[in-house]
């Protein structure tokens, strides 16, 4: 998390046209009193269902500070049919190792027919030659949303969208466009942890001999984890045991010849700790207590923005998860 941002300038307009917004951006840049480096790596477009969600998205992006500079364009969808546009343009400076780095934030409140043509608002605002990430904050894109086509990568969060209920539409979207699911990103530390339990000759041989997997947790994440295990280890449905639980826990039972082993990764109660262990019957074992990984929204967004590629492993895990839900 970077140091606090400083506002270098701000412009607000009601009932404006997009050229007014572009002109305001230019003026703010020229009038900046602070010498700042303008290094941009991304145009992030956020589609927010209301002003509160828009604010949360801005706060999250600002938390990253100078670490991921670029232009954030927040489209707040207002239900009013009267078609005017409100805009707030802010130029931020984020200090980083003694250098101030610019980032820009454009919040547009969109009403009327423009809500169905968000691409027309976004295209003039995106930065040339840089990836355009469209983040559907808490809802998915409506069917046929042309904004999806302007995105180099679509960002969703199945947890915010409604967990397992939205799996079919997200899978369809993932097959059509490169997509990152922040819920999947949050599972990365768990996947690394579990995969790492099989490191080393003494344990590796068990990874292809897993015959039972228990996955406890909240709906959505537990389905994705179970889907991941099923797709990677070719586990049949009957080998998977899913149960509702407040905290995640995974337990894999495996055999290699006559040897048996158990691999566990589980969050311990209310402590923000994960217990990870591998135990070979009559053989070596290890156990460690690790801090619960940071899976805040800012962390997931940061992780997603550094990758910017679709993930075929996710797609396969999601397809298996969908079978599990059915």
């Amino acid at each position, binding site marked *: 998390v970077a140091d606090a941002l400083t506002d270098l300038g701000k412009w607000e307009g009601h009932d404006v046209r997009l050229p007014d917004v572009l002109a305001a951006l230019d003026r703010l840049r020229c009038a900046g009193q602070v010498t700042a480096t303008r290094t941009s790596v991304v145009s992030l477009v956020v589609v927010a269902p209301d002003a509160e969600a828009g604010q949360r998205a801005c706060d999250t992006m600002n938390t990253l500070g100078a670490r991921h*500079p670029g232009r954030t364009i927040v489209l707040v969808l207002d239900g009013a049919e009267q078609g005017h546009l409100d805009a707030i343009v802010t130029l931020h400076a984020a200090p980083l190792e003694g250098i101030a780095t610019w980032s820009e934030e454009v919040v547009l409140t969109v009403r009327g027919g423009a809500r169905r043509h968000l691409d027309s608002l976004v295209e003039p605002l995106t930065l040339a030659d840089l990836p355009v990430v469209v983040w559907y904050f808490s809802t998915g894109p409506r069917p046929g949303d042309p904004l999806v086509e302007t995105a180099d990568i679509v960002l969703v969060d199945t947890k915010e969208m409604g967990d397992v209920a939205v799996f079919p539409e997200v899978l369809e979207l993932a097959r059509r466009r490169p997509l990152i699911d922040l819920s999947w990103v949050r599972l990365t530390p768990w996947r690394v942890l579990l995969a*790492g339990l099989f490191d080393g000759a003494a344990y590796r041989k068990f990874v292809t001999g897993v015959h039972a997997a228990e996955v406890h947790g909240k709906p959505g994440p537990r389905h994705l984890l179970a889907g991941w295990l099923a797709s990677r280890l070719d586990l049949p449905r009957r080998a998977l045991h899913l149960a509702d639980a407040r905290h995640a826990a995974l337990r894999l039972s495996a055999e290699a010849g006559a040897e048996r082993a158990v691999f566990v990764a589980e969050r311990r109660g209310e402590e923000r700790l994960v217990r990870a262990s591998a135990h070979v019957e009559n053989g070596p074992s290890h156990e460690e207590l690790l801090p619960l990984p940071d899976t805040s929204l800012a962390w997931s967004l940061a992780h997603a923005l550094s990758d910017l590629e679709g993930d075929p492993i996710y797609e396969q895990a999601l397809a298996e998860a969908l079978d599990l839900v059915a």
Partner: protein
Amino acid sequence: VADHDNPLFEGLDDERRAPPCVLVVFGASGDLTSRKLMPAFAELAENRQLPSAFAVVGVARTEMSDEDFRARMREAVGEGNPAWENVVERFRYVAGEYGEPETFDRLKEVLDEIDRERGTGGNRVYYLATVPTVFSIVATALGEHGLARPATEDSFVRIVIEKPFGHDLESAVELDRQLHAVFDETQIYRIDHYLGKETVQNVLALRFANSIFEPIWNRRYVDHVQITVAESLGVGHRGGFYEQAGALRDIVQNHVLQVLALTLMEPPASIDAQGIRDEKVKALRAVDVLTPEEVASDVVRGQYDDGWVEGEQVAAYRHEEGVARDSRTETHVAMRLRVDNWRWAGVPFYLRTGKRLPKRITEVAMAFHGVPHLPFQAGQAKGLDPNALVLRIQPDEGITLRFGAKVPGQAFRVRTVSMDFSYGAAFLEETPDAYERLLLDAMIGDPTLFIRTDEVQEAWRIVDPLLKAWGEEEAPLSHYPAGTWGPKEADRLLEREGRKWRTP
């Protein structure tokens, strides 16, 4: 690197994680272990890059129990995270003299015990955080106790040694002979922490991932190159060591020549250990060895007097702790080198390094030829400098491109401007500490950023004539006030050719 035999690691290729192993630190009670290695381990633990089947065994002469060693390492890191606490719990300690067989018998017992209990599979990384005189003693003892070779086809044994790799070419060759009597070259990881710096590696990315720089990276466009490795600190408590080493051995033979090699090298066929190191060796081989006359004319050695650095008054080198009052050890070296190959023939390379300079900075500056004809009237291009591309390695890592631009206004005037790219500001990822990166590489088995035996020898080949010239007679030693960029003679080295040092 993710384990590709493990299907659960598919799609997690970017997640670098060490394989199960035991890391044995010789010199475990020393400064390097506490100051550099343990904080790096703590960071690796926090980032979950250490495997569960992992342990550290400290070896040193100081009598300590396992628990004392753990307490000392906890203290070295300070407030740890639970992951680090977890790692420290697995630390073991073996006290003993490096020259006594009992020390290694005991070490063998402890290693076998850890293998049985934790499944570390006979994988070992020996880290020699000791004085260099002990390197060959430890290596020989490891060989004699059957600890230098992998126990199975699947396991590995590596040894990491810290610079200095010898004190001249002859001693470097002898050290290698002793190490190679026990270990294969592929098992030896010679660490120069400079190569672990993200921005040193970024030189490779800049040169070989972009099509716009490589075509101008040659004698046709480059007028000269300046490499600066400047430190604002003095010798601190290292006076005794520094008296023997001097700036030439301490910085030029390794850090400066490594940066030079990355700047000079041809594009490798692949960015891997062999590809990069082969090209670096070729580049170093192309550097002309200076004759005694050239050492006298093209190399300047200096020593700092008292002065002011960063607002504080500092003592002269000769008044530092552990330094002789009449010391003639150099704390500053400036030199002009030639590189005889197709790409660089005729381009002078100016290198300088020093202690107690105005600020800490490392950079490579490529100064380009001026335009063949300036089509401006007198005064219109006053103050316009030739183009320069500066690779800033530390601090404020990034790239600066210097070019001419029109000053806004009715008049037509051209002035030099700098376009800055700040590395830290463009990417989200935290830059790993150099030791963190290199320790993980050693455990993973990626030797790309470690120095191969032929690189070491080529570097000594360049430096040896200077050592000989300075050793054979009363070599001139210039003095400079602390807080300046070095002796006047260093400035003259460039001025006589119509150039000047950059002010970084």
